[in-house]
Structure formats: C-alpha cells, structure tokens
C-alpha cells in the first residue's frame, strides 16, 4: 500500500499468481470487460514474442472517495512460466493481497503445489509475511473433466485459512466473486494496519461499493448487494 497524505492518494496492489495457463490473464480481461470505463484504466498486457509467455498484465481500478481521497487498486498478473521467477518476484513486491489461481484438474495438483511453494518463497524474499498478506485461492477451470468436485474444493478450503472461490474464468464464472473476496480481504488488512475508516473516512462498504457498483454484476450473487447501482452505472455508460 502506498498512502500519500499530501496528495490524498491511496494505492493498493493485488497480484494474481499461479501456474502458467491457469487463467490469470483471463481473470483480468473479464474484470476489464465488466468494469465501467470511469473506474478502470487500459488493460496493459506485455507479451514476449512467444504469445503464450506472458510477461505481466496490469489493470488499474480507481475512484475518489466521498472524503476526496483518490484510491487506485492495481491488479497485476505474474508470468506463469518457470523461467520468469525473477519477474514474478519483482511483480509481487509490495503486494497487499494475492489471488492464487489454481487449476482445478487433479492432474494439475503437482503444478499448483510447486507454484504455491514458489509464492511462499517469493513472499519471504519480498519480506511479505504470509500471515499478514491475505491470499484468496481461485479453483479455475471447474468445468473441465478431471476437475475437483465442489466437495473436494470445500475440503481444500477447510485445510487452510484462505478464502476459496470456484471459477470458470473463460465464461466469467467466479471472476467477480474472486475479485470481491480479495478486495475485501485487502481492505480489512489495510484497515487494521492504517485505520482507513478512521483516518481516511473510507469504510469497507464505501471501498467495495465504489468499485462494485461500477461493475456489471449481472448473473452473480454480488448483483443483489450492489445491483441497483450497477444498473445505473450501465445505463450511465450508454450501453
């Protein structure tokens, strides 16, 4: 988190981590498509020549609070390919929360574990305390054969302290829910540390509302929480 009282700016960093081809970029693309242009910047995607070797993506989401603070949430993906560990470590620097995109298929278990350990190592390298930086796990590709069942995912959730969300990112299922879970976790962590509600007048309800009321939540459970305003945002968008 970067908090600049003089400029009245708060910048948060959320990093989407996980094995190659697990769906990190797909998550960001879907969020970009669902966010109204007034709260999101361009989706910056840096690819190397081989188009599967993504270098990183960046999607900024921003708003101004009722108390006049500018809040920017920067969403990053790390490159999944093994050789890019140095880049992963750099992108992870200063993260306020992490989404770990796991591949739900049972055959991907070893890969998920390897990248989970890699995440722990790189957090340590960046002086990020895993007990302090919230991690949300997304079980993506739930629709594929060989994917874990809901019961298995539930069991996996019980094994650790992280929030767990099932997803089919290509169809947009679970993507907004994952982002909601990680944004909420990031807010709560920063509120504990920097007392955002008390010092900035930024409550959790406003933080989440400012973002999610400006996203198209149609078809998700979140629509009931932010639904009415989301409709306004859509019509305001002229679409």
């Amino acid at each position, binding site marked *: 988190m970067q908090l600049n009282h003089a400029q009245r700016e708060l910048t948060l960093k959320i990093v989407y981590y996980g094995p190659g081809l697990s769906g990190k970029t797909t998550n960001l693309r879907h969020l970009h498509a669902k966010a109204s242009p007034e709260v999101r910047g361009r989706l910056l995607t840096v690819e190397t020549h081989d188009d599967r070797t993504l270098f990183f993506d960046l999607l900024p989401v921003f708003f101004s609070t009722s108390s006049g603070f500018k809040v920017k949430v920067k969403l990053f993906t790390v490159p999944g390919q093994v050789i890019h560990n140095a880049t992963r470590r750099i*992108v992870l620097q200063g993260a306020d929360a992490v989404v770990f995109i796991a591949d739900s298929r049972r055959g991907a278990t070893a890969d998920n574990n390897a990248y989970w350990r890699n995440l722990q190592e790189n957090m340590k390298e960046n002086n990020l305390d895993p007990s302090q930086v919230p991690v949300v796990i997304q079980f993506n590709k739930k629709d594929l054969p060989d994917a874990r069942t809901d019961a298995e995912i539930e069991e996996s959730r019980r094994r650790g302290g992280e929030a767990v969300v099932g997803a089919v990112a290509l169809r947009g299922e679970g993507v907004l829910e994952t982002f909601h879970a990680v944004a909420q976790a990031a807010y709560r962590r920063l509120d504990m540390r920097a007392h955002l509600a008390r010092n900035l007048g930024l409550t959790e309800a406003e933080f989440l509302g400012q973002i999610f009321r400006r996203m198209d939540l149609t078809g998700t459970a979140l629509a009931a929480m932010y639904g009415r305003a989301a409709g306004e945002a859509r019509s305001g968008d002229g679409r």
Partner: protein
Amino acid sequence: MNGASGNGASDGVGASRRESVLQRRLSLADMLDLPSFVEVVRSFSELYRVGIKVMDTAGDKLADVKVGHGDFCSYVFGFPEGRSRCTATVARVKDGPVAPVQSARPARGDGAEAAGIIALPCFTGLRYLVMPVRWEGDTLGRVILGPFTPEELADFPPSLTDISGVDLSRAHELVGRVRRVPERTAAQVLVHFGQVLAALVASGQRAFLATQLHIEAMLETHRDLEANNARLAQANTRLKELDRLKSTFLGTVSHELRTPLASIIGYSEMLAEGLAGALNPEQLLYVRTIVEKGESLLNLISSILDLSQIEAGRLRLVMGPVDLGSVIQTAVSSVAPQAQRKGVELEVRLPPLPQPRLAADADKLRQVVVNLLANAVKFTSSGGRVSVVMSEATAQKELAAQGYRVSVEDTGMGIRADQFENIFQSFYQVDGSSTREHGGAGLGLAIVKSLVEGHGGRVSVESEFGRGSRFTVVLPLQPPLSEHGGFSALAPMPSPGGQDRF
C-alpha cells in the same frame, strides 16, 4: 546477539534491492518518447496553425511549438504594462488550476466538457484552451492550445488599447498572422489531440514498463546467480579441504599399518626359516601362508600410501639418467612368475642399441611398467599373451617433443569404451560387484597416471571389448622442470578444469 545480526543482514538484503518501477508513480515524461512526441505536436501545430504546449505536473515543458502569435506577443511584450499583463496571463495558463475558476470558464465544443477543457482569455482579446492530461484517474499535466484569435473577436479590448504607446494599426497587422478560429473548432482540435496523446501514453507506458521490468528481472537473475556461485565456491573450497584431509589421513594410517605388518612378516619368515626351531610341514604351510598374505596386504598398503602421497602433492621424484630398456626388463622379470603360473605368454620387444636413456625416476618408472604388466596378466586368461613393446626415441605428437613410447598389450577381456575415462580414477573397478573375479584395490592405474604425468608424459588406453587392450605410455626424454626447480608428481585433478594461469 546472533539473532539480531541475522535480522540486520536480511533487512540489508531487502533494502539493497531497488524498488521496482511497478511501485513508482510514472510521470508523463516516463511514458512518452519525447523526440517523437515533439514531432507529433509540431505536425499538429502546423496542420492547425495554432501553438501547442505540453507540460507535466512539475511545470516542465515536454513540448512547445509556437505558431503565428510570436510577433504579436513580442510586440505587446515590448511595453512595460504589456509585459506585466502578459506575464500574469501566462502564469495563469501554465500554473493556475485547470478548472473553471480564476477567470477561466468551461470551453465550448463537442466533448470539451468531458475532456475538462477550459477557456482562458488573454488581455489582448486572444484566447487559450487548456486541457488536463488525465491518466488512470491521475492528472499528469496539461495541454495548452493557443493563443488563437476567437472568430467572434471584433476589436481589441480596453485591456490592450489602454496600454500607452501601443500602435493599434501595427497591432492589427501583427494579430492578422494569428490563427482566427471558432472556439468550438479549437476545442475539437484539442480533444482530438488528447486522444492521440492517450494512445501515445498507453504504448509509451507499455514500452517503458516492459523495458524497465526486463532490466530489473535481469538484475534480479544476476543477483540469484551470484548468490548461487558464492554458495558453490564455498562448497568447493570445503570439498577440496576434505579431500586433502582424506589424503593426509590415508598416508598416516598406511604408515601406521605398515610398521607392525613388516614385523608380522619378518617374524613369520624367521619362523619359516626355522630360526625358532624346526616346524612340521603343516606348521610350515601355515606360516608361509601368513607371509604370503602379509605381503599382499603390504603391497596394497604401499599402493594406498603412494597414491595418498601423490594426491597430497608430497611425492617427489628422484631424477637421474635411466636406461628405459633395463627398467622394462626388470619389470618383466618381476611379473614373469605370475604369468608363468597362469599360463600367459610374456613377450618383450625392445629397440636395438644404442641404450635408450632418459631423465626419470627409475623406481617410479619400474612401478609404472609393473602395474601395467600385472594388470595385463591379471585380466588375460590362460593361453593368452601379454607383450610389451618399446619404440625408438622419436618425436611424440602427444608431447610435442622427443620421447619414448611403451605399449603393454594383452589378449584379455578388454574394456568398454565408456570405461576408458574411469579406469584411471582411484579405487575404480570396472567390475564393482562384491563377487568380482579379480582382486585389487583399483589403485594401479591411478598411480600409473599420476607417475607418468609427473614425468611430463601421457598414458592412454585402446581396447576392443572381449579381444584385448593396449595401454600406451609416452615419456619425454627430458621432463619439464616444475616451478620448484625439482620434479614432483602432479596430484590428479579432482575435477575437470584448467589450471591457474598466473
């Protein structure tokens, strides 16, 4: 205390790493390739014949193209009152808020409001349009279009005409060179410029971040490699030290074993010779067995001692003129009984006179030939043949010098090509199984290699598996001097790699 310093060190590592560019707030200049951006601004200005300035939030000019208004403005600036009014106007345009306050109002035109464009009057009646450069919710700077002459301007306002000394006809003449345009059109130009600028910033940001991150990743990888290298170097130093300790240990232990063993053999021999009274045939057989086994154990220990001394770099060669032919003859006679017992034919082919002489350590050379012959006999079955052939003193391509070539050839079981490297390592056995047929500690060839190389020579092997082997030793007439002025056998290198050059 330890814990405290440990923490300090890890903090130091974290602090020494640079903050990533991803953590930094980028300025407009970071995200634009300035020379090409200036070109774009220039072509815009020339196309619409209006000046354009682009400034970042720090007030630095990134681009500044003046078109048309220069002469008029200089003329007005030439009067003291004009100068002070001009300075105030420019200050408002450049540093004032980009908001409809302090004499500014929202500009007219399609999209002007959404882009946040304001219109600012100049005291001369000319006009500026100012647009904020917004990026992801941040304001990174401003674009100033103008001054231009608003189309509706009929005549100069009093704020110009009341300046004493201004020649209005001259002012009219000069203002004619300033672009006359409706505010709407100017605002449209500015909106369009903003769209081009946004596209340039997007691609510029992408290029900037990608490049910077590539560099950071490279530095990070470099840091990792350096740390790995340091760890490996440390491990290597430790292994070398352990290796030296092993050799010293072997040397010491071998010596401590040899002394009592020599007594055992000596006393057994005295018993066998009847010095302590006559033995019955059975006792004699037992005692002779003790002597025989004691001697093979002593040989083994001597080999270990030799090798450990070579490895510890302590073996010194006593050099003198040596008749290589007689060295070979002596070696052959010492393995002859063994060959005879086994039914292996021994053949020696030496060149005719003159006497082959070279500078060497005779004892060590004999050991070389004995080891090769003993191996050949050991691995050749009954009815086979072992031959030792020596060349004349000729130029040897392996040494790039004059020298002798000694080959020991057998018709034994042979060696697979993939074992050629390994057989010269200490304790290596081609047949490593515990049930192997042939005894030995696997030191013979390692000693041969060390001794030959200590003489500046080379040893090599050729073999056809199942048909036989040929070991060839090439020795120079004169071994090269070692750095101490004496000769010493080189310790075998524990790993491949060059020797120190300086």
